[in-house]
């Protein structure tokens, strides 16, 4: 098994996921299988290969610095669970 229980727990915390005890063993196993699968790439000789940042071999196109998106707040906030005075409301975040 390439991943242990602690690593999976750490990933779950980072992803804000709660794993029930009975799901845990299975999740460790499944995630490990994925990692093992991808790990086959390690065997490929890459000494002379330049790291690839993107599969499309092109450079980023740029856009001119122009304001093209007008205020659409009223429309966009129809999708929000709750708003107040133009603010999106979320459960209180305590610092």
């Amino acid at each position, binding site marked *: 098994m390439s991943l242990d229980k602690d690593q999976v727990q750490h990933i779950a915390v980072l992803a804000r996921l709660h794993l029930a005890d009975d799901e845990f063993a299975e999740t460790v196993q499944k995630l490990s299988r994925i990692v093992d699968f991808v790990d086959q790439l390690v065997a490929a000789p890459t000494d002379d290969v330049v790291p690839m940042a993107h599969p499309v071999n092109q450079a980023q196109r740029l856009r001119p610095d122009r304001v093209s998106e007008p205020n659409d707040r009223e429309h966009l906030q129809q999708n929000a669970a709750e708003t107040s005075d133009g603010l999106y409301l979320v459960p*209180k975040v305590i610092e």
Partner: protein
Amino acid sequence: MSRNWEVVIGLEIHTQLATKSKIFSGAATAYGAAPNTQACLVDLGYPGTLPVLNEEVVRMATKFGLAVNAEIARRSVFARKNYFYPDLPKGYQISQYELPIVGEGELFIEDADGKQKRIGITRAHLEEDAGKSIHEGLDRHSGIDLNRAGTPLLEIVSEPDLRSAQEAVAYMRKIHSIVRYLEISDGNMQEGSFRCDANVSVRPRGQEKLGTRAELKNLNSFRFVEKAINYEVERQIEILEDGGEVVQETRLYDSDKDETRSMRSKEEANDYRYFPDPDLLPVEIDEEYIAAVRATLPELPAAKQQRFIEQYSIKPEDADILTTSRALADYFETAAGATDGKAQVVANWVIGELTGALNKESLEIEQSPVSPEALAQLVSRISDDTISGKIAKEVFEAMWRGEGSADAIIEAKGLRQITDNSAIEAIVDQVIAANPGQAAEYRAGKDKLIGFFVGQVMKETQGKANPGAVNKLLKDKLSG
């Protein structure tokens, strides 16, 4: 601060780039708009939207890199920095990690001994800002304003080359001055356009290995940077001298209490899981582009300071102050150019009276009610002996209040210096006659009383007598 400890500081400065639209979307970036009126689908992290890079941020970052003598990456890559917070709707911030647009650079500050000191710049990278959370007055909720989400930032990271809070502030001021010269940021600290985090550690003098550092967050004024670092240095030295250990952590500076305190974040140690953003292709910059940007660079503060010293023969420290901003430097040059070789006097007035008056009313140099040409006329009236330096201050105040030009005010108020020696002589005689006691004491050797007599004559003439002439006449008469 103890002589046994060496302070080591590195700064991360976040500069908001002065674009019209956001780094990856066409929403506006104007400051102070009503909440969420400048947040479009891309900024809100809607599914199916894609970021498109603003060409202006690439140009601005390149400009900065060239100004600090840095290598511009021919190929740079955007990466995702993953973390959860409600003001970051996508769940990641688009930043740069392994391949930033600006590589190693440098700038020079003056250290405590007035010597030039090189400060290394590790890198500068482009990233998007997050939104703003509002916690007050919303009961069980926090309010999220995403106007700032997607605002372009250039994060400038220094080497740990700074050795005191003063050096850190000097470095920060230089960067501030450079970004404003380049017109890539308004540098407005109240509005958060220019803010900094400081990595602070101490180590026993002579030790190679760096001490454990604390990161001080979000310092948004030069004064706070200095105070926060000084507090933090004291705190760390105290811990170490008591045999304790400094904990690596993030600390917030509380300006009301003038102390730093642990953020006690319950987050696990930062684990941002950076990876190249598949939504963005690598940014490629060629020689031609770099040459074109280089051609647009203005004269930078350090070069301008050197030129001022040589061209105008003013004091180096004055040249330093006058080149803090382009507008101030331009003001000085216009005024100095309109006088006949009185640049140092102009410098004194700009740094002294003018800056004092501007500060008092919280005005910028561009808003000065006294134009550089008007100030030049005032300086010329001092140098041609029309008025004394003391009277000039009175004239300046009247100019500031909008009462007209120096010449008009001098004429209207009858402030012209009395150059007629016989007129001064008469007053000198009168003053000596009125103060026989002091005259006798002076003659008996109490030289200091000359000041008293000069004062009396000045009073009689309402300050209009030439102080040099008064002095000479008094000495002649009193010793005669």
